[in-house]
């Protein structure tokens, strides 16, 4: 029989805890496939976040560390500087990356740290039960803005790719999505390219993935995909925000 697909070696054969229709599981697979294809699994160290992907350290088949909420890029910096031969990635949600960890995110990009960030933007706090995220859309309901996000009260959503693109230290930034199969394939390409840049020592790379949280949006998985298509894409346009193919990382370890 012809085998057309199999579990990536970089993903452990364990049952994931994600809700039906959640984007995290898809992105885990994409990251794992990219690691397999680049042959970097045995030298990759991943940083798991606080958030729904907190158990990512139990899913990836490489060395993993779990750190405080938002501090992934700082932890990745310490690992990369200590083991420059390793490929280091930090996997983070939008609360993790754009709220509590915004400082660490901006500065690791500013330093041109040769690390890769996988950034899941589902416009909500998943794990703590649906509170407003920095990325929650105007008018979108969340448990801490039950009438919908009002910019007069809650401020405006933050576009992270656009923000980081202004920094000289960032080398590859792309916003992708997983709401259709075609977009999943594009997201995979971007993730692979981001890791490839790190392998080549080019510096800071981040892939933002627009994702779904049907549970906290209180809608079906299919409607969650529709939400991404209709509501999130206008606010968060897909595309490459930075690509410096000739660049070299500013920094190195010992």
């Amino acid at each position, binding site marked *: 029989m012809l085998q057309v697909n199999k579990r990536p070696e970089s993903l452990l054969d364990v049952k994931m805890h994600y809700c039906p229709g959640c984007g995290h599981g898809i992105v885990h697979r994409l990251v794992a496939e990219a690691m397999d294809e680049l042959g970097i699994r045995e030298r990759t160290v991943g940083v798991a976040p606080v958030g729904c992907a907190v158990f990512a350290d139990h899913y990836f088949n490489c*060395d993993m560390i*779990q*750190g405080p909420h938002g501090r992934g890029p*700082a932890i990745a*910096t*310490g690992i990369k500087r200590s083991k420059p031969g390793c490929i280091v990635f930090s996997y983070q949600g939008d609360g993790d990356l754009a709220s509590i960890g915004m*400082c660490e995110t901006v*500065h690791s990009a500013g330093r041109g740290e040769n690390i890769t960030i996988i950034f899941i933007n589902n416009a909500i706090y998943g794990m703590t039960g649906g509170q407003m995220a920095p990325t929650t859309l105007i008018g979108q309901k969340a448990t801490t803005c039950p009438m919908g996000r009002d910019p007069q009260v809650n401020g405006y959503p933050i576009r992270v790719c656009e923000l980081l693109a202004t920094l000289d230290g960032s080398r590859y930034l792309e916003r992708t999505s997983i709401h259709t199969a075609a977009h999943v394939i594009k997201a995979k390409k971007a993730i692979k390219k981001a890791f490839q840049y790190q392998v080549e020592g080019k510096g800071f790379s981040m892939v933002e993935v627009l994702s779904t949280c049907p549970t906290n949006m209180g809608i079906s998985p299919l409607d969650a995909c529709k939400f991404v298509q209709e509501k999130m894409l206008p606010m968060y346009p897909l595309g490459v925000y930075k690509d410096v193919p000739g660049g070299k990382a500013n920094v190195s370890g*010992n």
Partner: protein
Amino acid sequence: MGEKLLMKGNDAMAEGAVRAGCRFFAGYPITPQNEVPEYMSWRLPQAGGSFVQAESEVAAINMLYGAAATGIRCMTSSSSPGISLKQEGISYAAGADLPIFFANVVRGGPGLGNIAGAQGDYFQSVRGGGHGDYRTFVMAPDSVEEMGNFPLHCYEVAEKYRVPAMVLADGVLGQMMEPLEFRFPQVDPKTLQSPDWALGECKGRKNRLVGSYDLSEGKLEVMTLNRGKRYAEIEAKEVMFESRQCEDAQVVLIAYGIAARACGAALKMARAEGLKVGLFRPITLWPFPKSQLRALADRVDSFLVVEMSMGQMVDDVRLATEFRAPVHLHARPSGVTPTGEEILKRIKDALKAGKGERVCCK
């Protein structure tokens, strides 16, 4: 080894860490410890290591968390407000059993306080500081010599028991210059064995995890209690203290760090006047030299604790001595260093009171 050098306390501590094998430092400027990151910024690259000026203390301690997880010797340092920010990361390191090493060159507080030497961070250092049940191995130097030599000991204890270890110094020690000798051969990190939990390349072995959580019922309790066994072992084996002229003493001074230096001056003056005074200096603040103090408590008339805080260690002294002798306190908080003369006066008050009531409680 053997070479006498003249150094500032902060520089000596940084050099001591490098000689002990430190190859990664992350920090953020704050007075009075700025010499440490400044020194590391040129010294570490020279030694083949890496220095990062982090964007905040929060980032610095998390860089350390990542670096320590790879099994290398690393360091961060700060002063009081910065250490408060680092507590989140220190708690995570304790929870993940990572041997991190950091230094607090204490200044006057609370809040922004001032930049003079102080001892107001005692509770924060010996009681945990961050959230959760954990302990930090704490060494309190009283000289530039000890500033330079304690980092190695901190690394060794931190690695043996997989706990955070710290040097608790203060602004005076950080800024003063004294001759010192590094009393150990330089450590080449290449000769150190990589621990069997260190992250890195997983070729040929199962992947490893470093983390501080377990959500399954009861498991975290088991993890914490097991850690508690290591803490008990540290308390049994790793206590360090210095005792001077306590044998015939009626009053024993108790102080650590720069306050112990002032007590040393007072001790000399008192003995010159024929007064029976001794000095007991805890070198490890956690573990605290409990049984040694307990043994003294039955022999002396009273203790006089001299602290550059409102009185924090004095609580540990009372607990250790089980109230068997009066414990007096001479407190100079928030950036004042006591003088030998004023301590001598307190000694005389204590001698007069004998085994009676507590006298001085400034």
